[in-house]
């Protein structure tokens, strides 16, 4: 029986899906590296600028002096690891799930809701849907149409299983 996810993409479909995976991976990887390379970087300002129904929760987190270094480290390394997974096609699905998790958190802390004004102004105009949501949807699409076992290190790792 042919499994659903074993159906082949056309060359064009595969190429565009891989390109999308790699550029989203690049985005995550550089976001992580830039934070890692900035001395003293902290998400404190961003977190304290949270709005929407979860704002209280995020701000409480921001004010917790003992938890903030951990929050910053998790954010930085999660971005880097997710970025590497997506670019390399390695543990691809874990990478997508991680990306979805971070993007959901970013959206919840800075929702593009009505009557929200942020200290960090966004570079566009949004109503409910912002770029984080768009990227989130793109990652969900990639999760449904995986490519790592065709172009990527998952090809070796899952070779035996595939056979």
């Amino acid at each position: 029986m042919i499994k659903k996810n074993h159906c082949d993409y056309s060359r064009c479909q595969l190429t565009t899906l891989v390109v999308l995976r790699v550029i989203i991976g690049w985005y995550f990887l550089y976001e992580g590296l830039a934070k890692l390379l900035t001395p003293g970087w902290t998400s404190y300002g961003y977190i304290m600028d949270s709005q929407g129904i979860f704002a209280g929760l995020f701000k409480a987190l921001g004010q917790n002096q003992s938890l903030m270094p951990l929050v910053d480290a998790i954010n930085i390394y999660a971005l880097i690891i997710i970025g590497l997974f997506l670019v390399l096609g390695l543990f691809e699905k874990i990478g997508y799930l991680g990306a979805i998790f971070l993007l959901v958190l970013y959206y919840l802390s800075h929702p593009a809701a009505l009557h929200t004004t942020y200290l960090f102004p966004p570079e566009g105009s949004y109503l409910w849907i912002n770029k984080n949501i768009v990227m989130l949807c793109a990652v969900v699409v990639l999760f449904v149409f995986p490519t790592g076992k065709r172009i990527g290190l998952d090809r070796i790792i899952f070779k035996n299983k595939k056979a």
Partner: protein
Amino acid sequence: MSTFENKDNKNKTNIENSEQNISKGRREALKTLGTVPVLGAMAYGVYKKTKSERANRLATDIFHFQELPSPVLVTEGDVIRIGIIGAGRRGISLMRAIGFATPQNIDKLKKDAELNSQDTRYKDFLEQEDLNVKITAVCDIFDTYAERAISAGANIHREGLNGKYGEKPKRYLNYKELLVAPDVDAVIIATPDHWHAQMTMDAIKAGKHVYLEKPMSWTVPETYALRDIVRNSKVVFQLGHQNRQIETNKRGKEIIEKGLLGPITLIETSTNRNDPNGAWVYPIHADANPNTIDWKQFEGDPDRVKEYMDYMTSNGLAKYVGPEARDKFSLERFFRWRCWWDYSTGLSGDLLTHEYDAINQMMNVGIPDSATSSGGVYFFKDGRTVPDVLQTTFEYKEKDLAFLYSATQASQFKRSRKFMGHDATMEIGNSITITVDARSEKYKEQIDKGIIEPGKPFYNYTPGQKEVDAVTSATQLYFAERGLLYSYVNGKRYNTTFLHLKEWIDCIRSGEQPSCGIEEGFQEAITAHMGTRAYLEGRTMYWDAEKEEITKG
């Protein structure tokens, strides 16, 4: 088909197979590792980008700060018993700063926190350190204010209405009675300006430590008398310029002392407000009337009033006195006393002193050589005698420095406090931003190499950030310009008035000198008086440093 031909065909197939295998292997490798070069591209990009960000590293290298000492809580020893003299708007907020709020105020904070989960004032207040002090005495000449202060003083568990309270502080109708009370070690004075120096002198004579709201004095002669009395006593005197506790001011001082701005020739500061409250048109309390207010005591100390009147009349300034008779009861004058010279020191004493003391804190400028002022009542034509627009320029000849203060109470346009140096300008408020000057000699090499872009913010420091950092992005700059709302000490958020009162209380216990003592206070008062006299008399005022006298130009 011959055997030979068969062999030949087999060989051919083997070769083809092995070629196929090799090419299959290549394809396999390509499919597996095809995206790896992307990481190479990123590594190259990051290398290039990091190299171009040398300017940021340079900023961090140049503006490297010392670690500020953590505030040590000195609460050992006996409870310090505090008396409150003057429990109006400022007095009650000073009480709250040391942990004593009215139950009504606590209920309001609670309610606000319930309505808005981001409002942490109630939580912050409950968590604020206990300074091991007690309010034992209260004096206010308005009954309602006195009762309010009593309920705050008794609220030792920081509870709302129907809570459990401690012993009520005793009310005194006259501050002189409070000063002889044996259960008072120290007093907090937050009365109108015309009472500041007199009450402080009386308190010191009675052996009480004093925290006095700014400005230090109302008349010039009392300024000298107060200095002498404090100098010859052992009490701890702190003037209420809480800016002394602001972290950015301490950082600004370090930057200036390291010479990072080059020679500073001009400091520009301002006050911009645009509401009745900001223009001292405070609400009049419904319970206030001649029966609930001791007007006689409000009028002032006769000796001080005489000093004021002597100066005004002998300099042809009678038009600034009154206009109502001093002994005539007036609710307006009682609640909005800042609007009349009869009780007030105007913009100079109320708001210029904040700016001046911050500058004195950072640069130890001392008393200026001269002061020139201009201004007028341009917007609030409500019968006030003090101006609502004021410009004062102070010159420091030996320091090659001018300090310009400019204020209006009818526009709240934001103007930053600027220290203009030959090499860079520092804007300092809730955050510090430094812009390197295009003609700087100190940074010429870095400017020529393109490492520093002159005219654009080069360095920013926002308290609460983990470490100092350069302006690495537009968003960070934006964040910095808005500033954070709180004062930080090594990353912990504090109310600056609490820190300033805490310093005074700590000094009472340790015997050390607080940051805004009598010498700083004397400089503050004389500077403000020079600005005021320059405005009133319409001419430049000079400071004769040898004789320690204000002289006319």
